[in-house]
C-alpha cells in the first residue's frame, strides 16, 4: 500500500530538526530508520502532515567514549551497533540484543534511537537499555536534557519525549568485563518477542558480584527485574542460586494475553528465560 501524502523535511542539524518539528506541530512524525514507521504509514495507521527525516544529520550517527560512558548516536543503525567494538567491549548486552532484532535488511536501516523512541514493549532494545541504566539525551526547543531509561519509557509506544523533542544520544555506563546474554523467545525467527530477558552479570571469584536483569514484553514498558537481581547478588554463581532467583522474575510484571501467549504462560516463561539468560551470562 501507499502512504497518505505528507510533507518531507530532511534537516542537516539537530537544531534544524527541532525547529522543523516545532513548525510542523502535533501531526509531525520523526523518521529515523523508518523500519517501524514506514509499514505504519503504508497501512495508513498514521497519516502525519510532515515527516522529519533525521537521516541527513551526521552527528547522530556513531559510537564514542566519554569517560565512563559509551555514547551511542540515536541514528546509529542496528548493523553498526552490532559490529561496534566499543559496544561489544563495554555493553555486550546491547550488542547481543541487537543481533536478535528483526532481520538483516531491517538492521541495516533501523536505528538504536528509533527503536527506543518507538517504545514498543516487545522491542528488543528497551529492556537492555533499562537494565544497563542508559540515559537518553533529548533535544528540544529549550536545549538538551537527560532522561534516565526508567523514566523514559512511559507506556505502550509512549515515551517521555514531548512532541517537539528528539532523542539524540544514548549514554550507557561501561559494563566492561561483565557477562551478558539476551534470551529471546518468539515463534518464528523474524517475529517480535513473546517474552525476552536481558541479563548482565559480573562474576567475581565464583560469586555473582553484580547483576542486571531487564524484561521484554512483560508490561506496557520494559521491566527491571530487581527481585531477581537482589536474589543473585552476593551469592555463588550456581544453578541453584540462579533457579531460585529466577522465581522472582514475574514479580511486578503485568503481562498481557494475546494470540501467542496468555498472561499465565508469560509469567511462567519469564522465569524459565531468566534462568537461562542469567546462566548464560554468568558463564560468559
Amino acid at each position, binding site marked *: *500500500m*501507499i502512504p*497518505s*501524502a505528507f510533507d518531507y523535511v530532511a534537516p542537516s542539524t539537530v537544531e534544524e530538526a527541532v525547529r522543523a518539528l516545532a513548525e510542523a506541530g502535533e501531526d509531525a*512524525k*520523526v*523518521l*529515523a530508520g523508518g523500519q*517501524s*514507521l514506514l*509499514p*505504519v504509514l*503504508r*497501512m*495508513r*495507521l*498514521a497519516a502525519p502532515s510532515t515527516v522529519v527525516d*533525521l537521516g541527513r544529520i551526521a552527528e547522530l550517527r556513531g559510537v564514542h567514549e566519554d569517560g565512563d560512558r559509551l555514547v551511542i548516536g*540515536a541514528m546509529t543503525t542496528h548493523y553498526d551497533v552490532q559490529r561496534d567494538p566499543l559496544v561489544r567491549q563495554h555493553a555486550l548486552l546491547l550488542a547481543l540484543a541487537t543481533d536478535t532484532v528483526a532481520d538483516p535488511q531491517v538492521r541495516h536501516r533501523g*536505528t538504536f*534511537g*528509533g527503536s527506543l*523512541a*518507538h*517504545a*514498543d*514493549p*516487545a*522491542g528488543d532494545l528497551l529492556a537492555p537499555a533499562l537494565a544497563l541504566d542508559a540515559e537518553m539525551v533529548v533535544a528540544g526547543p529549550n536545549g538538551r536534557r537527560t532522561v534516565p531509561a526508567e523514566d523514559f519509557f512511559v507506556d*505502550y*509506544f*509512549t*515515551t517521555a*519525549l*514531548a*512532541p517537539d523533542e528528539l*532523542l539524540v544520544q544514548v549514554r550507557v555506563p561501561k559494563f566492561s568485563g561483565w557477562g551478558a546474554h539476551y534470551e529471546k*523467545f518468539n*515463534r*518464528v*525467527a*523474524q*517475529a*517480535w*518477542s*513473546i517474552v525476552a530477558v536481558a541479563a548482565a552479570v559480573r562474576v567475581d571469584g565464583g560469586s555473582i558480584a553484580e547483576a542486571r536483569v531487564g524484561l521484554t*514484553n512483560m508490561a*506496557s514498558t520494559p521491566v527491571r527485574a530487581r527481585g531477581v537481581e537482589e536474589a543473585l547478588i552476593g551469592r555463588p554463581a550456581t544453578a541453584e542460586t540462579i533457579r531460585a532467583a529466577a522465581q522472582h522474575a514475574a514479580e511486578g510484571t503485568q503481562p*498481557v*494475553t*494475546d*494470540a*501467542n*501467549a*496468555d498472561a499465565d*504462560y508469560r509469567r*511462567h*516463561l519469564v522465569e*524459565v*528465560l531468566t534462568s537461562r539468560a542469567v546462566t548464560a551470562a554468568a558463564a560468559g
Partner: protein
Amino acid sequence: MTATIEPELGRPRRRKEDARLITGRTRWTDNIALPGLLHMAVLRSPLAHAKISRLDAEAARSMPGVIAVLTGTDLAEQQGSLPCAWPITPDMASPQHPALAVDEVRFAGEPVALVVARSAAEARDAVEAIDVDYEDLPVVLDMEAALADGSPLVHQDLGTNRCATWVFDSGEAGTGEDVDRVIAEARERGDVVLERRFRQQRLIPAFMEPRSVVVDPTGEQITMWSATQVPHILRLMLAMTLGVPEQKIRVIAPDVGGGFGGKLQVTPEEVLTFLAARRIGRPVKWTESRSESMVSAHHGRDQIQRLTLAARRDGTLLGLKVDLLADMGAYLGLVTPGIPILGAFMFNAIYKLPAYRFSCTNVFTNKTWTDAYRGAGRPEATYAIERMMDELAAELGKDPLEVREQNWIKHEEFPYTTVAGLTYDSGNYEAATEEAKRLFDYQALRREQAERRERGDAVQLGIGVSTYTEMCGLAPSRVLGSLSYGAGGWEHAAIRMLATGKVEVITGSSPHGQGHETAWSQIIADKLGVPFEDVEVIHGDTQSAHKGMDTYGSRSLSVGGVAAAMAADRVIEKASKIAAHLLECSEDDLEFTAGRFAVRGTDRGTAIQEVALAAFAAHDLPEGVEPSLDAEVTFDPENFSFPHGTHLCAAEVDTETGRVRIRSYVCVDDVGKVVNPLIVEGQVHGGLAQGIAQALYEEAVFDEMGTLTTATLADYLVPSAADLPTFTTARTETPATTNPLGVKGVGEAGTIASTPAVVNAVVDAVRHLGVNDVDMPCTPMRVWHAIHRGAGAAPTEMATGAEAGGGLGSIDGGDQ
C-alpha cells in the same frame, strides 16, 4: 544430428523458466503497463456483518485524478453472482455472491465500493474519502454456534446457516459394511473404540505474489491479465457470470507467483476490474496489498472433525466414522463446498477398512470465504486418520508403524478397491516404509526417546509417523459428474511442428511455479527425439492455448502431461505416413527411434525435422494426407493416480517452554515415474514446509467481532529458512498403471503427509506426561498448557488482549 543421447525422462534438467526469473526479466501482472492505464482500489468492509445504511462517495468523486467511483448499487444490474461450480447436493443452500456488496456486508474485507483513478495512490486516497454508515448485524463466527437454533443468520434469505450435508456410507454404497453396526458390536465385544475431535485451523494460502488484474477493453476482444491458476475457467466463468460472449474475452495468466489453490478462483476483483474497464473504456489495473490479500483472498481448511475408530485388540481395523463441520465462510467461491468432500475418499487412506461412513456439514459464518488450499480436503483426511492410527497404537501399546503395517494394503494386493469405492492401481507401502526407517534410523531414535524419558530430560523426543496416500490427477470426468461438479476433468494439449523442425507444445495446464516449460519440453523431446532446446511450451493465454482445465489438484503432469505425450504420438503417426512415402516403403517397415524414421534392415531413413519440412512444402505428400504434422489431444483420465509415502518426523519438545524443534525429517515418496527429479524434489520440499507450517506456525485468527487479527505477514506466521529443518527426501517408484507415462503427481504430497507426522511427533514426545492431543498450530503456549494441564488439548481460542506489544501499534507514539 538430432538424436538425444541421454533419455530426457528422469533427467534432472535445470529449468528453462529460471533465466528470466533470476534476472528480474519477469512478467508479473503488476508489471504490465499499457497506454492510458488507470488504477483501481477497493473499499472493504471493516465489519463482519452489517447493513450498509448510507454510502456517500461525493467527496471521493471530486478528488484529484479520480475517474470513477462505483458502488454495489451502481453495478447491481451487471455484476451477477460470482460462480460456484460445485453444488454438492441438490438442496444445497446457495447464496447470492455479489462482487460488490449492495446493501449488506457479511465478512470483514468484503468489497463495498471501488475507485478508478489516474494513479494507484490517488485511487487509495479517494477510497479513504468514501463515507459509509453501517448498521451492525449480529455476527456468527463459530460453526457449532452457527448451527444452533436461534443463531444469527449469515444470509437471512436462506433461513439457515447450514449450507449442505453430504454423506458417503459404505453400507449404503455397497463398498463395505454398516459402520454404526460395526462400532456397536465392537463396543459390546470390548474392542477398542476411540473417539477424537480434531480441529483443522483456518489457513491462508499466502502465495508470495499478491493478486493483480489488468483489463484492456480497447480491442475487439476484452483482454484480461490475471495472477490466476485458472485462465480458462476464468474466461468461461466471466462469460457466464457477466453474459459477455465467450469469444469476446481473452484471458492471459502471465508469470504467476504461486497459487497453492489460492488463485484457483474467480474473484470479485477480477469481475470488478472487468466491469470498470469496460465502463470507462480504458485499461484498468488492480493490484492488492498483502493486508488486502489476507482478508479477502479465500482462506483454506477450517474444519471440526469428529472421528470414531473401531479396532480389534490385536490392532485390526474394523470401522471408521467421520463427522465433519466445514466452514464455508460467508459465501461460496468457485469450488468451496466441494473441498471437504474431496477428503471423503481419503479418510480410509492406505488401510483395509471394512466399514466407513463420512458425513460433512458445510456451514456459513461471517468470515472470509474458504476454498482450495494445497491438498484441498485430502490433508484434512490424512491428518485425521494418521492421528487416529497413532492414538490406536498408543491405546494398544504397539509401535505405530506396526499397527499401520498390520492394516495397510500389501503390494501384491493391488489393484485394490477401497471402502470408499476408489480403485488404487498400484503402490508399495512396505518398500517406502522400509527405506524411510533406514534413512531415519528409527530404532536409534526410539532408544534415545526411551533414555530421555527415563532421565526425565527437560527436552523430550517424539517420533511421528505418517503413511499417506492421496488421489491426484483431478479428475476422471465421469467421477466429477457423479459428484455434481460443474465441469469435466480432462486436459488438452497440441503440438505444432514448425517448418524448421522446431516444436511448439500448447498445454491447457497453467503453471505458476511448477516448471511445466521444462517438464513438458522433456516429455516432448523424449517422444519426438528432438533436442530439449528445440521445444517451446506455450500456456496460459486463451488465445494461443485455447482449451484447458488449468492447474490444481496435482493434475498437471498426470492429465496435462499425458495429453501432451499423446499428442506427440499422433504427430509421429502422421509423420510416419509421410516418411514412408518419402522413403518409398511401407509404414510397417518403418521404425521410429530417437527422432528418426528408419527403414528396417537398411541404412535409409529420415529425421522427423525433414518430414516436418516436407509436410510444410507439401510438394510431394501421399494421397489424402494433409500438409501438417500438427496434432492435438484432449485426454480424460480413466482413474485418479495414488502417490503414497512414509514420512517420519523426530521432534524435540522443550517441556519448560513448550517449544517444538524438528530435529530430523525423513520422507520417502512414491510418485510413480518421474520426468524431472529436481522438480519433484522441489515440490516435496515446498509441500513439507507448508504442511509443517500448519502443524506448528500458521493460523488465521478472528477476534470476537469477526476481524482477522492475523492480517499481515507479521502476524500470520509463514516460516522462514531459519524456522525449518533440512529434509531428507528419497523416492521409491511404483509406476501408475492408469496413464501411459506411469506418473502420479507430486504437487500436494508433502503438504498432505507432513502435518500429521509433525503433530504425532509432538504428542509422542509428551504422551507420557498425560497428553494425547495438541491443537494446531502446536504453539509453545498450547504445548506447555497441554503438558501442565495433563490430558487433552489446550484451549484454542484465546481472548485477545487490547494491546500487546509487537505490532504496528505506533499510532500515538513519538516514534522515530
